């Protein structure tokens, strides 16, 4: 287990390094590089720009700049937002809670529904339920999240008036009920795609498992089908789902960005979009790097959990 952990950690660090190079490259991809926003503001002369570049170290060779940038990143200095002059990392953290709240809620919904739809689809393979679930999942995977959000707002907020049309809470009212009421819409919208993904993966994983010899062994012991399903099949079929959870993180974050935009949810996605609109490059790049690191950490955690959950990998001494 220790060796497995060290191996995975090393891999993650290597990826992290490549991610940082890619991030730095994107930052310098812009015409004029990190300086372009000053050029656009229009009230700076070329001399001002040069002095600014000198100050920021932007006239030094790229490898030196990269080393400086990387040192700052590691030290937690992610730059200062052009928009409100606050440290980027602090701004990101202040928006993280809202995004996590949304992602976590929708993931819980998606896992709960998706796992059961997938399990039943596998158990009743080729049944009417399975066919309908398959078609539903395929359509759900194809619906643009933002459009589904618009439809939900139109129908449930405007037509029926059941749900608020956006934001995290009514200003001045931070009660749990109020927050919950605001959470329902975006969480369900974000859960749609994840539910479809989970049901598909779960179905195929479950199909794999229920054809295994050990399920036949369990049946030959005379235990009930329910117990076979829950104690013998589900445990094994859920194992690969831990990895899927990690792998789906980039898509989940993407979905969260779009959902936050449609529902005016004050999370990281919304912040990202606002920062782009303000040409606030330090924040944009900060968030981009931050999400990639989040994905890396998420995958690392998923691998560790998998190692703990699967006795074939886990830390039991031989």
């Amino acid at each position, binding site marked *: 287990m220790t060796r497995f952990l060290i191996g995975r950690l090393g891999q993650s660090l290597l*990826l992290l390094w490549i991610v940082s190079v890619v991030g730095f490259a994107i930052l310098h991809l812009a015409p004029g590089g990190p300086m372009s926003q000053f050029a656009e503001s229009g009230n700076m002369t070329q001399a001002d720009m040069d002095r600014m570049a000198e100050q920021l170290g932007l006239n030094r060779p790229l490898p030196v700049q990269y080393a400086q940038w990387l040192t700052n990143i590691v030290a937690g200095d992610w730059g200062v937002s052009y928009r409100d002059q606050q440290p980027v990392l602090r701004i990101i953290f202040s928006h993280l809670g809202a995004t996590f709240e949304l992602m976590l809620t929708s993931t819980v919904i998606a896992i709960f529904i998706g796992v059961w739809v997938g399990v039943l689809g596998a158990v009743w393979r080729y049944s009417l339920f399975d066919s309908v679930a398959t078609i539903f999942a395929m359509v759900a995977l194809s619906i643009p999240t933002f459009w589904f959000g618009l439809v939900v707002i139109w129908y449930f907020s405007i037509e029926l008036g059941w749900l608020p049309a956006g934001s995290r809470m009514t200003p001045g009212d931070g009660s749990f009920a109020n927050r919950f009421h605001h959470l329902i819409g975006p969480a369900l919208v974000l859960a749609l795609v994840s539910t479809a993904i989970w049901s598909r993966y779960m179905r195929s994983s479950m199909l794999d498992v229920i054809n295994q010899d050990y399920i036949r062994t369990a049946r030959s012991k005379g235990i009930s089908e329910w117990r076979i399903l829950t104690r013998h099949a589900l445990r094994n079929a859920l194992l690969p789902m831990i990895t899927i959870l990690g792998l789906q993180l980039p898509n989940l974050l993407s979905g969260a960005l779009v959902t936050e935009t449609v529902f005016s949810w004050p999370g990281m996605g919304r912040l990202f979009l606002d920062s782009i609109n303000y040409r606030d490059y330090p924040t944009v790049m900060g968030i981009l790097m931050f999400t990639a690191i989040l994905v890396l950490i998420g995958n690392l955690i998923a691998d560790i959990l998998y190692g703990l959950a699967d006795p074939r990998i886990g830390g039991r001494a031989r």
Partner: protein
Amino acid sequence: MSNATLAPAAPRIRLFQSPALRRFLRHRLAVIGTITILTMVLLVVIGPWLMPFEPTSTNIRNRFLPPFDSTHLLGTDPLGRDTLTRLLHAGRISLAVGFAVMILSMAIGIFVGTVAGFYGGALGAALMRFVDAMLCFPPIFLLLAISALINPSVISIIILISAASWMEIARVVEAQVRSLKERDYTVAAEALGARDRRIILREILPNAVAPIVVAATLNVANAILAESYISFLGFGVQPPTPSWGNMLQDAQGYLRSAPWLAIIPGIAITLAVTSFNFIGDGLRDALDPRMENR
């Protein structure tokens, strides 16, 4: 003396050989998807010529007409432009972006995947780690970050989405090439002194067609979705050029007064993407030899 006569014939998968085609045609959803896509392509190619309106011609008197109007079948938008005309023109752009991205990202993905899989070693490892690192970035974040830095046009959008979506194909191709490289007929061709390029083009890639075709189909679906996302957010195809994504951009503001403006383009996107996903699913079953007895 030609190598082809000596090298043992590779068991190629012929796409239109009957069993695969039969399995595909048995996949009802895939057939529905294919018919839908063909119809959509036909409509967006021919449709605009049959429409009496221009996609950009405004008419202040006929603003916000609801669908099923006598002259405007799908109604009009806030500027009085005909929604159906715009939908068809937008379809041209969105579908074209989808196909173009597929072709471009296939080219990148197949190239990187083949090189990494065939040569392996440090080069292969470095390329695949790069792929892994690229996949760490949530796709929408990556697309938006880059699109914010460049001037958006249809061409730059195509390049952008391709740059963010070739990695999955590279992974598929790399895995295929790596396993095919060890097969007997490849080793035989190599033993006979065939050049790398020849082995890759004649022995390996033809045998990796099945998973590549499936990945390509799903790639079109994802590219159409990606275009709609970034255009909806205002960083994709720029008005007045219509695309399904940017038709939705303004619609949010008129949800109360004119909800059809939001609903209609979304249905078009969903229909196209669902169809491609159905086709991909059908191809996966049809090209998988293990599905023989289904």
